[in-house]
């Protein structure tokens, strides 16, 4: 009996020592780490902004950053990821071509942490301190739009709102719309959603939608779009028809900002690509060192995401 107890105790000690050794060996300084950044394409302006910031931050930390573009193909992206795993990168930074493939990516990455950005996989695919998301809150963006509308039209009892959404099924589009609608509904005003359809993030589609809407002859006070591209498309049609509703967008693109300066468009929300790039690298370093995400600013409670703050852009601060 005593012998068995001894054997068990010894086994426990042995395991404990092994595990202790394992964990202590994993600690590395940021310098010398290798990160692989996968993007859906490297031509998008916002993605470029993120890439540049990430490069700078990696350089500052003494880490090596490799960037690969999948040119819009999930399969290419997965192949790139597999290659990266073989080459033993310390962490993967990924803008998935399709956020639904995140599960497969996580399966391929195994122990290597992944920092997703710009397109967010569903919540249950994010794991604390392992598979995380760095980005800005889509809900906050929608909420800022609604708050701006309510502030601008504070004197009105009834507001007629036209909504142009992004792609159906896109989480960003869904969240932005949801927060916008909810915040508006929560006000004491009567909100009439006179039009609410998707324009697939696209200016031309937005134009067509506005043209159809105008045929319904319904009044409109505000046009809220899930992005600036659609907002600018809508703006064009309204201007052609001599109408001047409030137009609010998201992304604060250069065109949108100049439109805001010219008071043709009223409001947009700016995601800081450079800040996102910076925090991605910081988060990657933290994960590689097996440290908690909560030590990084803007991390959420569940330690599955870092919410880089947004800035509100109106005539006063548009550039």
């Amino acid at each position: 009996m005593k012998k068995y107890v001894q054997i068990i105790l010894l086994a426990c000690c042995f395991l404990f020592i092994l595990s202790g050794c394992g964990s202590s060996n994993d600690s590395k300084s940021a310098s010398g780490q290798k990160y692989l950044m996968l993007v859906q394409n490297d031509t998008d302006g916002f993605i470029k902004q993120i890439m540049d910031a990430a490069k700078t931050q990696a350089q500052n930390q003494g880490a090596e950053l490799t960037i690969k573009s999948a040119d819009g193909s999930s399969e290419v992206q997965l192949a790139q990821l597999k290659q990266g795993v073989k080459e033993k990168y310390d962490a993967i930074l990924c803008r998935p071509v399709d956020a639904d493939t995140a599960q497969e990516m996580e399966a391929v990455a195994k122990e290597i942490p992944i920092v997703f950005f710009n397109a967010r996989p569903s919540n249950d695919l994010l794991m604390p301190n392992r598979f995380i998301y760095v980005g800005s809150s889509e809900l906050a963006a929608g909420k800022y739009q609604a708050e701006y509308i309510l502030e601008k039209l504070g004197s009105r009892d009834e507001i007629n709102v036209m909504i142009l959404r992004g792609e159906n099924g896109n989480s960003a589009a869904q969240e932005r719309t949801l927060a916008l609608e909810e915040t508006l509904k929560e006000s004491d005003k009567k909100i009439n959603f006179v039009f609410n359809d998707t324009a697939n993030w696209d200016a031309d589609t937005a134009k067509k939608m506005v043209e159809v809407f105008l045929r319904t002859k319904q009044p409109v006070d505000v046009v809220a779009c899930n992005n600036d591209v659609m907002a600018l498309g809508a703006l064009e049609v309204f201007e052609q028809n001599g109408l001047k509703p409030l137009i609010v967008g998201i992304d604060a693109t250069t065109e949108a900002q100049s439109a805001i300066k010219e008071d043709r468009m009223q409001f947009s929300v700016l995601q800081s690509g450079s800040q996102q790039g910076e925090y991605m690298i910081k988060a990657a370093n933290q994960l590689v060192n097996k440290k908690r995400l909560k030590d990084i600013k803007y991390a959420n409670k569940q330690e599955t995401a870092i919410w880089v703050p947004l800035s509100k852009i109106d005539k006063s601060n548009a550039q």
Partner: protein
Amino acid sequence: MKTNRKKKRSIKVKLTLTIIPIVTILLLILVGLSYSISSKMLQRDANDLLESSVKSQATRIESWLNENLSAFQTAKKTIETTNPSLEQLPRILDGYYKFDSDFPDGLFIADNQGHFYKASQSDIEVSNPTSEIWFKEGMTHVNMAFGTPHKQGNEEVISASGIINTPGDPLKVIAGNLTLDRVSTIVNSFISMKGASAFLYDQETQKIVADREKSFVSQVLGQSNQPKFYQAMSKELKKNAEVSLKIDGNLAVSRKVNGTNWVLVSYIPEKVILSGLSKLRLIMVIISVFSVLALGILIERMTNRVVKPVKDMTSVIKTMADGDFTVSVNNNGDDEIAEMGHSIEGFIQYMRNMIQSITHISSGLQEQAKTSEMISRDMYDASESQSVSMDELNNTVDQLSLSVNDIAENAMQLAQIANDTKQNSNLVEEKMNETVEISEKGRSEMQQVVNAMQNIQQSINDLESSIGRVGTASSQIVQIIQIIGEIAHQTNLLSINASLEAARAGEAGKGFAVVATEINKLAKNSADSVSQITNLISEVNTLVEEAVTQANHSSDDILNSSQLIRTAVDSFDSIFQNIQQTNQLIQDVVDKIDLVDQVATNAAAISEEQAASSDEIHATSETTLTQAKHISNHSKNVATEAHKLADSSQQLANQVKRFKV
């Protein structure tokens, strides 16, 4: 012994009473723990399962809706592409009638001028198309989308609608209906978890869109006729659309259905989840009961085997307790009990040796006790005889004391006599003093005689003869004085004798009495002599008177006689002096007698001290006697004790004899 036996519990009972409860408790804890852990695990698993079920269900509902939507969308696209004339429109719509089981009524179109187009066989009745919900909803989007549940005829439906994007007026809205019955069927047939139920809830209107229970459909969630769970759930859903919680005995998970305002709620009673667990618990309890029983039997068997040698040993020990040390212990084995047997074997051996030596010692002791009893008896006898001797001694001392007392008494008497003698001699002295006085008087009278001689000179002749007589008388006085001197001498001797007698008083006080008489006689003699002297002196007086008369006759004679008288006076002086000397002597005698008295007194005192001493001797011998009596008592006690010791050692010997060795 009997009361002890009542309290006694066998090892078997003790072991059983200890181990069985402990094992039972441990098993209960084990069952309880495994039940609670597995119930937690099951609940977690069930929750995960329910979540994934809801997710897949929501996805399937979504895709089902999207399927229908895309069917509508395709139809709409066809219409938009072909842009049919108003006449062509009903024919196209006829093509969709009963085209799909989900929307058997097919599609229908209305324009903003109040025209309504439907399949010819469709029985939808619309009086004012522009006021219809689906029309209003359709006006807000180009892409087909579902709206809120509403009543179409007798049926609860949801409509998918959208603006037909064709140029030119009037603006047309196309729509298709899905009955909520159909939705309910779809919703519940997509449940992937066994035992779970689901309902669909519209966030916009807070109505139930789909439920297995038809009566609930299109009711506002949380009405009083609905189960408690629905009411609780409605509160939760108002707070948050997507929840995962345990509520009213159910696990519940809700998910939004994308592209709609709907929330899918799936729930499963905990009972269902834990039913398998209850079976597991039952099995575990049965196994536990069986193991406890098996353990009980095992303990019974084991203790029997283990206790058997102990029982053997107990019987050996009992025999030993009865005094029989001829037994021995059977030893085979190498366990603790065998070791105990070895020890008992050793103990028996040791006891045997010890009892033998005790027997030996007790017999020796008995002998010794007897010897000491005898010695003490001898001692008693000796002390007894000592006591008798002491008694005798005491009597002797008593007698001695008596004798000493007699001596003391005699000495006292002597002292008394000496005292008396002293008084008598004092009397003598007094008389002598009187004599001296008288003689002094005589002297003075002699002086008168002398004076008369001078006056009477005539009878000097007569005086001469008288004076001759006076001369003879005075010679006689001289003789008497001599006698007195002898007496004094003899008294002196006697007194010496008396003192010697007194010194020897121890032998006899009687001699002294004789001496005292002698002294008395001598005193009488001296008194007689004194009286003779007095008589003689009175004769002298007479003679003197005769002489005086004769002097009267012859003054001449007086002159002749005066010389003689002077001589007589001188003689008288000498007599006087002698008397005084006698007096002195008597004084001395008295002093001596005083000494005798003192000595006699001392002798009395000494003999009294002697008596006291002999009293002390007596007391001492009395004490010694008491001591001797004590000694005899003690030696008597010693004898008794020695006897008792002899008895005890006899008993010890008897006791030891009880042991068989």
